């Protein structure tokens, strides 16, 4: 096991996606303003978990590129890493229903959605379906299916029922629709358009 020091790195608004290994999850956020909001949310999350310290980088013999904004050192564990990925997913989902709201409102909603995410069963494909709702426009069952079908399984270790021998997703339209309906019954997702094609969003 790596010692915590090995994970100690400087985190800034410019490098957090790369340093925190959020590339796949954050690939749907290519906008500087949205990324900035996401960075603030992540920072709050890291602060509340006690993983942060400020960087003091003085040096006499060097002319260094002083980092814009406040650079922060953090220590990260595997569990924290997973929760950060959940946070990006939650942010993408919340953006659909509360775009442009104040950061504090977003932070509250993200926290609620993260709790919802923890209830999802990855082996039944529920997690991938909910993740997809934040990645596609419009968030219909058809688009969820297109987003997942034929692509490599996102959680191959979960032994999902829709994963084939080559670790490819085989989620069809009918199971996608029925999964969304069962998630609706659990009050995790809701319909935001009831006419065909039905659109779905997270409950927050």
């Amino acid at each position, binding site marked *: 096991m790596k010692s915590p020091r090995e994970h100690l790195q400087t985190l800034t608004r410019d490098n957090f996606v790369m340093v925190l290994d959020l590339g796949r999850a954050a690939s749907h956020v290519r906008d500087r303003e949205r990324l*900035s909001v996401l960075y603030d949310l992540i920072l709050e999350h890291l602060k509340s978990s006690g993983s942060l310290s400020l960087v003091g*980088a003085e*040096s*006499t013999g060097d002319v*260094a590129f002083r980092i814009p904004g406040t650079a922060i050192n953090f220590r990260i564990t595997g569990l924290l890493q997973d929760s950060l990925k959940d946070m990006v997913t939650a942010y993408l989902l919340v953006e659909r229903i509360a775009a442009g709201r104040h950061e504090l409102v977003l932070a509250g909603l993200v926290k609620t959605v993260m709790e919802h995410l923890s209830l999802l069963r990855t082996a039944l494909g529920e997690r991938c379906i909910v993740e997809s709702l934040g990645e596609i426009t419009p968030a219909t069952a058809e688009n969820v299916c297109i987003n997942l079908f034929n692509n490599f399984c996102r959680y191959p270790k979960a032994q999902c029922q829709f994963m084939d021998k080559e670790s490819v997703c085989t989620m069809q*339209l009918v199971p996608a629709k029925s999964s969304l309906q069962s998630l609706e019954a659990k009050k995790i997702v809701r319909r935001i358009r009831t006419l065909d094609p039905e659109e779905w969003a997270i409950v927050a």
Partner: protein
Amino acid sequence: MGPWNPTLAASESSALRAVYRRQGWGTRLRLTRREFILRITRFERPDPAGKLIDTSRPPTYLRTFVFDYSEGIERRVLVLTIQAITQIAASSRKLVRDRDFLIWTGEHTNSLGMHLYIVGVPYGVYMPVFEIFDEKYRTESSFMEITYSLPQEFQARPSFRYEYGKGVLYADPFDSPAQARAKFPEVGDFEVRSFRQASGPQKNPYTAPERPQYRSPTRHSEETWHRNREEIFKFLDSLKGPCGFRRLRSIIKECFGVAVYEEGAPEFPHYGLIRLATVSDEKPPAVRILINEHLPEKLKYIALAHEFGHYLLHFPLLLVLRYVDETAWSIPEIEPYCRRLLTEDPSTLRALEDSADEIASLFLIPAWTHPMARMTSIMIEGGVSPPPSEMIWRLLQPLFPEDRFADTTWNDLEEIRKRAHRDTNRLRFTTVDQAANLFERMFAAALRVDDVKLGEEPEIDPLRGVLGAMHAVATKIDSARESEARSFLQGLLKDRISEQHDPTEEEFLPGLVAFGRELVPPLSTRIIRLFPRIPLAPAIYNPDGTVDGDWRLKTRPDGPVGTLADWQRWKPDHGLALYRFESWQKKALSKL
């Protein structure tokens, strides 16, 4: 497939021509170089309805037929498209018949509120093929005009494929072929498939620059730097556009003799850093730039340009700082004194960073574009010229990883204007220290560069006073004995500090840790006193620079080796200055 495969790119045409000539195929073979050809491939798995999936990258441009939207237009255009495809397939000319291309359709509401139905064929498609479509579509009464546009401007999706005499209909991925044929009975025996758009390669915002012929030595004296400066300014003048991290790194290394390394150590808190090597011989020092390995490639380019800007503008300061570092081994008072000189006026360091940012901005938005107003004055968008600041904002977009506005369409114009205006206004009220990210710093620097009036008197160099004071101290130190120099500097330090309040001992202390250097206090004195230091580097068999490993004198690579305890026992009233290895040095040692 015939001998002429139109899916091959035009660049392969001359080689192909030679092959065909040898084979005795088609002496009439004529390759249309201007035709944009996209390779359409088959996805290895079927869609949810079991149909085959074709996949292709999005085209850059489409030649489009625009129709006024009316009820039933899709079906009428569909019939015309089928007629055109049938005619192309039946053509007696091989060059017309043997083709493989997509036909795109979409809708768009223009600024006048007109709802349009648009059909696109590949831009620059072989003219006789285009004429067949033209002839058919003109028979439709709602036909308006032929133009060209980006596929994303009208949410284009492929509806048909003409594949070497065969028509393919692209249907909904959840529809079976029978369902699709029932929806569109006009397609007859056309094959039904679905389409999946492959993600296109990211557009490369960089261009290869003209490499300077100049070669600088790797050891940099002030004379070398003066020569380099001239050549670097020439290089900056010759830049047509940003050149990218790898190219710039290679040019800086080969032409200007500055080594560039990527630093992956977790203790490295900077984006980039420039430093001079400590040398044990009498020769001038080598210069190296360290760039944070954990930055995206696009930001590495900017960090490198910034550090190179420091070399271009602040090499004399680097020389002085190296002198301070080395002198502090025996006269530690020089370090807090010089740090105080540099930092007591916050504007000095800020000016240092600002000027390096301005040089970096010239690597992003080259010198020939300034003043930007000259360029924007001949541009009209929506009846007005864009402000220069907006144009600078736009040019910077593809050079940062968050490239939402790197590849835009007319639909994005309003949002672009809003964002550029907002960012410009925010920068008016913030200083460089308050910049939230690298983009804001570079944007601010580019605006400053664009704002400089030609022929204006340059501002007084804020570093001049600092360098003058440091030179004066250095002259005094060189002519005095060590103990005299130390008491002289202690006096200077007290004078400077007591200007505001009584000095505390902490104020004499230099920082104990800097990247690649760590101070270990001596055994026999308290930590709050200044102490001479023994400069140590990890010995070859302690390549990681671990504190419990063995160390040798940095200035005498062939000298004795000992643990830190050994060195502290040797001179208990001296501290140890540990110069740990940088990542590239560790890598080099691991290969030995």
